[in-house]
Structures are given as C-alpha cells and as structure tokens.
C-alpha cells in the first residue's frame, strides 16, 4: 500500500471505531419507554395500570413489571406517565401478581391519596395487612404510597403472559391523588419483588419501564 492509502485507511479505521463506540454507548443511553398520557378532561385524569408477575416476552420474559393502558385502550409496556398539573388523578391498578409481603410494613397504609383511603376490590380500606401486599405504587415526592393486594397463591387461572386480561385472577385497586406543581417525579414499588435477585431489589426493581417510572406533571 502507498503511504497515502495507508494513512487514509488508518484514519477511516479510527473514525469507524469512534463511531462504533459512540453508537454503542449512546444507543444504550437513549432507550426509554414511551410516554403515556392520562385520559379525561380537567380537573380529573384517569390512568389504568396493571402489574404482572412475569412479562413473558423479550428482552426479560421473567421480570415483574407494570403496564399501562394508552388512550386507545391498548396495554403498553411503559411506566412513564403524563398528567396535568393541579389536577386529580384517578388511578386504577389491576394486580395480577401474588403477594410477596412488604419489607417495611409501614407502607401497608395508603398515604397521600384523596381521603387517605384506597379501594380494593370494591372495599374502601385505610390499611392493608403488609403480608398481603404484592407491590406498592409510590410517588415519594408527592407523598403518595398505596399498597397493592396480591392474588391468592392458590388462585385458579393465574396470568402468565403480559398483557393479562381481566378474565384472569386479579385484584383491583382504585385511588386518586392530587398533582401539584409541574415537574418530573419518580415513582416506584417498595416491595422486594424482583424474583431471584438478592434482597429482591435488583433487575426490574432498578429498571425504568418495569417497577420504576416517571410521573411527568405538565402544565
């Protein structure tokens, strides 16, 4: 090879390598689930979520996860929710997972909800036996934390692949809370529910799109 050709090929090789590395890192960074907006007009917004014990599809078929219903009534694998500021959010969560029990029983009490209560399978409750909890839905910066009752271990017709449908064994949790100022708030689950991971807090418990998400409160 001539010197020019060699110089050119080295430069091209370096450029290719740099592009590859940048693509490798940035393509990991930009992965983020879609944003799902609540439905309904001011002052009340509705959101419908479900939790499943195992997602059943790639890339993590065995992971526990939240799903959210979008405006067309379709279940989407996402945890990024968008609601208007200074409004009331009505949340319905269909819970298809069995109970794990709370590590810190303190979260067995619904907090930060309208009226300080939650509605589980049609009954209004001010506390849930922490051992019966399967997950929680918590937005710490808004003071919201609600335990989600698990499906009985011996229930028939348990859901195995997301999205689950309402014909399968589930509990229904309803509550509402008030949003405040616009901002980006994290929400998460406090039950150590990540199967197989030490202390139950690895994997899905530390992954946005599974058991963690953002609540985007917008004007």
């Amino acid at each position: 090879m001539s010197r020019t050709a060699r110089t050119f090929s080295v430069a091209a090789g370096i450029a290719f390598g740099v592009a590859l590395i940048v693509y490798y890192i940035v393509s990991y960074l930009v992965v983020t689930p879609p944003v799902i907006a609540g439905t309904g007009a001011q002052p009340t917004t509705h959101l419908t979520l479900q939790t499943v014990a195992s997602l059943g599809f790639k890339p993590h078929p065995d992971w526990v996860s939240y799903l959210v219903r979008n405006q067309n009534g379709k279940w989407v694998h996402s945890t990024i929710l968008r609601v208007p500021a200074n409004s009331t959010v009505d949340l319905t969560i269909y819970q298809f997972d069995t109970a794990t029990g709370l590590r810190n029983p303190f979260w067995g009490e619904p907090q930060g909800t309208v009226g300080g209560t939650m509605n589980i399978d049609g009954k209004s409750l001010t506390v849930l036996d922490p051992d019966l909890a399967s997950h929680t839905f918590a937005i710490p910066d808004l003071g919201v934390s609600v335990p989600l009752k698990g499906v009985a271990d011996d229930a028939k017709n348990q859901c195995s692949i997301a999205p689950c449908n309402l014909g399968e064994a589930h509990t229904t949790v309803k509550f509402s809370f008030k949003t405040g100022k616009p901002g980006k708030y994290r929400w998460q689950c406090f039950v150590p529910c990540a199967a197989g991971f030490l202390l139950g807090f690895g994997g899905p418990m530390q992954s946005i799109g599974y058991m963690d998400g953002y609540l985007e409160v917008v004007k």
Partner: protein
Amino acid sequence: MSATAITVRRPVWRRLIGFNMLTGLVLGIGGWFLGAWIGGQMAIGHDYLVGTDQNDVGIYMGYLFGLIGWLVGLGFANYPIGRLLGRPPTLRHHETGGWTRYFRLCTDHKVIGLQYLFGIGIFFFIGGLNAMLMRTELLRPVEQVWPAGQYLTLVGLHGTMMIMMTSAFILGPFGNYFVPIMIGAQRMAFPRIEALTFWLTPAAGLILMSAIAFGGIPFGWTGYAPLSDQARSGADAYVMAFLLIALSMTLIGINLMATILTMRAPGMSWTRLPIFVWGVLATSVLMALASPVLVAVMSMVLMDRSANTSFFLASAGGSPYLYENLFWFFGHPEVYILALPGFGIVLEILPVFARKPLWGYRLAVAGMFGVTILSFMVWQHHLFVSGMNAGLRPFYMLTTELISIPTGFIFLNAMGTLWRARIRFTVPMLFALAFFFNFLIGGLSGVFLSDVPSDVTTHGSYFVMAHFHYTIMGGLVFAFFGAIYYWLPKMMGVVFNERLAKIHFWLMFVFFNLTFFPLFAAGFLDMPRRVSTYAPHLQWLNDFVSASAYMLGFSMLVFLANLVWSLVFARIPAAENPWASRGLEWQLPTPIPVENFARIPVITSGPYEYGVTGAPPVADFMPAALPAAGS
C-alpha cells in the same frame, strides 16, 4: 528458518492470519459463547440463577473462556507448549517485524510501552466521553437527557474505566519503555509477563464496556456490596474487569520491582538512580502488595453473585463492612499508585528544564517511600461516618494527616530545584509546573477530608469528587501529558507542533480548574456524589461546570489533533537529545535499537549533574571490560 529469511511480502489477508490481535478477538468471542453455554449447563436446576433472565455463572464462564481464547489467539500458549515439546527458549523472534508487531504478542519492552500508550489512551478517551455525557445530564436538575439508571451506568463506567486505566497510566507506557533504558538494562526481568500485563488491559477494558450490554452497573467505581451483589449482570463485567486489571497490576509491580532491583547496570548505584525510577519502584511495591486484595474482594463478590455465598449480606451472617474494609485496603494505596508515578515524572522533568540538579534527592526518595508505607495505614478515613470502630477515628485522622509530611517533601524538592534556576518554558515544563499547582489544591483539600468534624460535612459530597479529580486528573493526567511531550521525541522520533501543544496546555489547565474548583463549592452546598438530580438552586453552578467540562474535553481533541498531525502528516524528525538532558535514555540513538545498548554501559555519573563543574558524562557506553564484581 528465522523470520528474516522471508523476503517475499505476503498479501495483507495472509498477514492477518497468525497469532495476533485479530485472532485473539475471534477466539475470545468464540470462547465467550463456549463458556456461556457451559455455564448455562452448570446453572440448570439452580433456581436463583435461571429465574432472573440472567445466568451469572454463564456470564462468568463466558468471560473466563473468552479471556483464554484472547490470550491463546495472541500466542501466549505457544511458549509453554513449545517448551513442553523441547524447543529452546528464545525471545528475539517476538521482537522483529514491522508495524505489525504492535498488534501482536511482542516481548520488546519498547513495543509494549507504545502498545500501552495507545491502548490505555483509547480507553482513557472512552472514559472521558462518558464524563462528557454525564455533564450533559447535569445541565438540568432533574433527569431530562438520560434516564436515572443509564446515568448511574455512565458514572460507574467513567469511574471504573478511569481508575483501571490510569492505574498503569505512567507505569505502563513510560515505566515499561524507559525503566530498562534508564537503569542501563537490555530488557525487563520478565518480558513475557510484561506482554501479559499489557494484553490483559484491553481485555479488561472490553469486558468493562460489555457491562452496557448486560444492563449497566448502578454502583459507581467503588461497587459497595450488597448493592453490587443485587445488581444486574453488568456487575459481572465490573467484577471480571477489575479482577483482570488487579492481576495485571500485581504482575507489572512484581516485574518492575525485579527489574529495578536486579538489572541495574554497573555503576548505577541507588543514589544515581533517576528519580522517575524511584517513583516507579515505590509504585511497584504498592501495586504488588495492594492489588491482590482487590483480587480477593472481587472474587468474593463473584462468589456472592454466582455461588450463593453471603460474604456481604448482613441478614445471612456476612457484613457490608467486610467489603468496605477490603476494598479500601486496596483502594487507598491505589490512589497513591495514581500519585507516586506523577511525582516521579515531574521531578524527572524539573531539573532538565531548570538546568539544576534535583534539589534534595534523598528527601524525594524518602518522601516517596514514606507515602508508600503510610498509605497502607489510612484506609479507614473513607469510613469515618460508617459507624465502625469509632474509637479508631483519631488514629486514622493522625495517619492520614501524617501522609502530608512526605508529600510535602516533593513540594520542597520542586521549590529547591526552581530556586535560582534557569527555567525554560517548554511544554513538558508547563505541565510539570501545573502539576504542582493542581496537586497543591488537591492535597490541601484532602486535609479537610482527613479532619473528622470537617469530613462529616464533606464526606460523600462533590467536595470529595473535586478533591480526587484535582489529585488524579490535575496530578497524574497532567504528569502523563508532560511525560508524553517530554519523551515522545525519543519514543516516536518526531517532534510535536509546539503551538498546538501550548494551546492544549492552556486550554486544559484553565478549564480543568474552572471545571473542578466550583465543585468544591457544590460539595459544600450539599450536593452528594453520583446523583442525576440535585437542588434546583445549584443549576447555574452545574451549568457553568458542564460548559467548562466541554472545553476541557475540547482541549483533549486539540491534543489528538496535534498527535495525528505530528505523527502522520508533519513527521518532523526529532533531534536525538532535543532538551539537552543528561538522562541515560537521551544519550541513545533514535529510534532506540531493539537491544537498547550494544554492550551494557557503565554508569559514571548521576543524571542531574547540571552545572556541576567537571561532572563526567553520564555513562561509558563502550566499556572495555566489565568492572570487577562488587564495585
């Protein structure tokens, strides 16, 4: 049938086949899949491994077999197999050949030095890219650019990559290249181990980067258990990468120690040893003694993650303190592994451009070894508020503050050397002087962290982060660039464009300080480390820091441009001794012959006898006969 007998140039594709980096990569990737499959078979029936969509045993086995494939592909198995088959021991056939020897197993310490320079350099720039991406996120007080998990992975990758690569930042390129030359030897004590230490480094770097593919690492470079126990498989990459780099550090430490202790030329007495070699020797002692502890602690995390042990799980009889103690027992000597070679470099550069002998040579040596010894006694100052051994806090406060005495020696050496000197402001000298300014701030800010009442404020905050960037980036990295500008004319035979080099220096110096000095204030204003969200009133401060950080990154691009321009396009040949240095390495022709010295020289004088009337030349390169033993 020696290699020189082949006169016909083979086509390129044919030259790619053989024991080289490409083969190593292919066998490494193949070994990964084989190991992952074997690990998958081993994990069957273990619920905790297969229930999580990630089989840590499979991943560890994959890395292990991949590493073996990489080393075999590079040709590390050839020598032992050849010896088993009765072939005679030889090194030289690994050392000939053109530019392709830089991509192969080569036992010439000069080739390994350059391999280190470019190998580590690439990973250093990847670590820097991560820093730029982190600063991009910190432009806003809430996660707006990257989600929280990805940000933490950036933090972990930046920290781990930088610590791994800068551990051998000076010993790798310049220690390997110049220590044998500076002591008048023809090679290192263990040339094959020397090659192994280098080729483990890119393996570790690639394994660490693969953490991205396995979900990232959410625990920074310290990897505190049990957080690292519970993390996703990215932690496996962290564990394996750190294991390999610790192995590499141990080996390079032993190798350099053996070389310096046993292979000095006649007349190279301890008081004539260049101060850089003393710095390397002190660092080697630290590496050989501290790095095995990292091997141990990473192995324990590996067992916790794959074999269901519970070294660090409090609820199963373990203790997180065990991890913290073991990690910092390595980790604190490690920060001096990062500091001491810098001392060596700057004290080597100062006399050349001050045109004076090194002032207080013995004090400098005492300072380096004082730091070496004390650095093993201070590790719990990282754990002042951890709640362990509250009664020992005054002891660790004392030892930590004691370490500033030997560190102060180095400053006295520099001040004495500059006193009434004839300073020439070359680029290496500028970097050496900047080193002292940055390290002064870094070192004095460390006093805040050593004082327990003050540390309660600053522990775990950006103050710590600013402190160690002042010592590592402001110290070691500035010394590294000083060494590049100082020695590259000898290593590569070309001169740098001085104008670009000075632009690089001033950009780097100014924006380094503008980046990191405000972070002391951020730490004082309660901004914890490793957060992607912070108090909104600190946004202007962080925006300023991010802007400075981009300019700091830009200064690195100026350096790269200079490197490419000078190496590839301009190629202005360098003089054999452009700095008029008395260093032994500068008395050799450029390029330095494979065996360095045709005959082992006899050292007749110290390397810093500037201005001494009647000082003899530094060495006799053609001694008639070796002097009698015992001289």
